[in-house]
C-alpha cells in the first residue's frame, strides 16, 4: 500500500501545473531584487585584461564600440556598456566612436552618452555615434577599411568630415581598442575574420552569456583580448570599478533563479526514475 501512495505522490509531483512552476520562479527571482543579499564574486582574468587595457589608455587614444545586439537581448549585455563607459568617462582625452550593425544598436549607444556628458565630455570632440549600417559582415569590413567613407553622415545627421574626433581616425588601425557588444550574428566571428585578422587591433567582446562557450576558443588563441560574459561580466567589471550597478544588483536574483532551476532538474529526474521503476515493477 505504501508503494501505491508513494507512487501517487510522485505521480502528482510530475503532473504539477506548469503555471505553478512559473510562479515559483517569478517570486524567487523577484525577492532578491527587493531585498538584495550580496555574495562573493570572483573576477575572471578576461575581465581584468579588459579593465587594465582601458585603464592604460592615454589622452589622444580613440576607442571603437560596436553595438550588435537587439533590444530583446539587451538586459544581458547593456549593463556591461554602462560599466565600461563609466570607466571611459574617467579617462581624460580618450575618445569614443560608437557604431551598430543591428538596427537597435545606435539606440542603445545614445542611452549611455549622459554618463560622458556628466563628465564634461562633448559630442563631436569626445564621442560620436556613427549609427547603423545594414549588410552585416560586408558593412563591418567597409567600416574597418575607411570609417568616414562608410559613414559620411553620423546618426545625428552631421557630416562626419566636420567632426573633430573623426579627423584622428581613418581605418580600424587608428583605434587603440575595439569592443564589440554582440547578441547574435554578426558577432565575434565576423569581427575577428574581417577586422582583427586584417588590422591586428586589440579586440574585446561583450556578449550574451549563452554565446560565451562557443567563443572561448578565440580567447584562448589570443584572437580576442577579453570576453565579458553577459550580466556577470558587468558585475565583475563593476567590482573592479568600485561602483555597484545593474550587474551586481542582479547577481543575487540570478543565484536564486539558478537554485530553482537546479531543484526542478533534480526533482524532475528523481520523480521520472521513481515512476519508471514503479511502473516497470507493476508491469513485470
Amino acid at each position, binding site marked *: 500500500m505504501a508503494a501505491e501512495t508513494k507512487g501517487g505522490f510522485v505521480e502528482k509531483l*510530475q503532473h*504539477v501545473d*506548469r503555471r505553478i*512552476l*512559473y510562479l*515559483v*520562479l517569478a517570486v524567487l527571482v523577484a525577492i532578491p531584487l527587493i531585498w538584495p543579499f550580496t*555574495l*562573493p*564574486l*570572483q573576477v*575572471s582574468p578576461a575581465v581584468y585584461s579588459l579593465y587594465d587595457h582601458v585603464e592604460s589608455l592615454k589622452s589622444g587614444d580613440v576607442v571603437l564600440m560596436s553595438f550588435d545586439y*537587439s*533590444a*530583446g*537581448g*539587451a*538586459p544581458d549585455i547593456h549593463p556591461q556598456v554602462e560599466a565600461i563607459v563609466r570607466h571611459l568617462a574617467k579617462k581624460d582625452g580618450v575618445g569614443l566612436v560608437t557604431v551598430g550593425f543591428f*538596427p*537597435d544598436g*545606435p*539606440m542603445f549607444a*545614445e*542611452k549611455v552618452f549622459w554618463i560622458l556628458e556628466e563628465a564634461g565630455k562633448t559630442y563631436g570632440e569626445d564621442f560620436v*555615434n556613427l549609427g547603423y*549600417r*545594414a*549588410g*552585416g559582415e*560586408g*558593412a563591418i*569590413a*567597409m567600416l574597418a*577599411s*575607411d570609417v568616414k*567613407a*562608410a559613414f559620411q553622415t553620423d*546618426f*545625428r*545627421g552631421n557630416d562626419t568630415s566636420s567632426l573633430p574626433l573623426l579627423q584622428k581616425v581613418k581605418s580600424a588601425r587608428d583605434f587603440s581598442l575595439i569592443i564589440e557588444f554582440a547578441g547574435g550574428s554578426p558577432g565575434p566571428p565576423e569581427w575577428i575574420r574581417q577586422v582583427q585578422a*586584417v588590422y591586428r587591433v586589440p579586440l574585446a567582446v561583450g556578449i550574451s*552569456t549563452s554565446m560565451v*562557450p*562557443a567563443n*572561448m*576558443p578565440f580567447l*584562448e588563441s589570443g584572437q580576442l583580448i577579453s570576453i565579458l560574459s553577459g550580466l556577470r561580466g558587468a558585475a565583475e567589471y563593476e567590482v573592479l570599478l568600485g561602483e555597484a550597478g545593474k550587474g551586481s544588483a542582479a*547577481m543575487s536574483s*540570478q*543565484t536564486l*533563479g*539558478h537554485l530553482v*532551476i*537546479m531543484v*526542478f*532538474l533534480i*526533482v*524532475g*529526474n528523481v520523480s*521520472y526514475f521513481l515512476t519508471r521503476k514503479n511502473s516497470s515493477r507493476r508491469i513485470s
Partner: protein
Amino acid sequence: MRRELPSVVLFVVGLLLILERFLNVGLLAEVGQEIRTWGIIVAAFAVAVASMNLIVVHVRNVRQHKNVVYSLTLLLALVGMAGLGIATGTDSSGYKFWYNSLLSPMSSAMFAMLAFYIASAAYRAFIAKNAEAAVLLISAVLLMLGNVALGEMIHPNYGAVSSWIMNVPNLAGQRGMMIASAIGAVATSLRVLVGIDRTHFGGGE
C-alpha cells in the same frame, strides 16, 4: 538565361572579394569598397521588403475580415513608428520615447518568457534517459554552480573547478565543432559561389 546571369553576377562578386583579401592590388581594394557600398544599399532595401511582406499579409487579413483588430493594430504601429522615424529622424527625443517605452521593454519580455519555458522543461523534459544527456546535465549543473556564487558556498575555490571545465573540456569540444562546421560552411559557400546550390534564388524557372 534567367537563372544563368544572376549566378554569374554572384560568382564575379564573390571572387572579386576573395581576390581582394589575397592580392595586394589597389584597384581590387577600390572595387571591393564599391561592391560593399552597393551591398549596404541593397541590404537596406531588403529590410524594407521583409517588412513589406508583413504589410501584405495583414492588409489581406483586414480585407478578408480575419482578426481585423489585431492586424489593424500591427499596421498602425508599423506605419506610425516608420513615419515618425522618417519624419523626425531616429535620433529625435520623440522617437526615442516610443522606442524606449514600448519596443525595448516588449522585446525583452518576449525573450524573457523563455526563462519560464526552461524552468518547466527542467522539471519535465530534461531527463537523463541516456548517458549523453546525463553527462550534459551534470556538467551543466557543475557550471551553473560556478556561474552564480553558489559554488563558492560549497567550497572556497570552487571557481577553479568550473573555470577548468570551461577552459579545457568545453573548449576542446567547441574548438573541434568550430573547425568541423567551418569546413562545412566553406563547402556550402563554395557550392553557392559556383551555382551548384541555388536555394537562395527561390523556386520557379
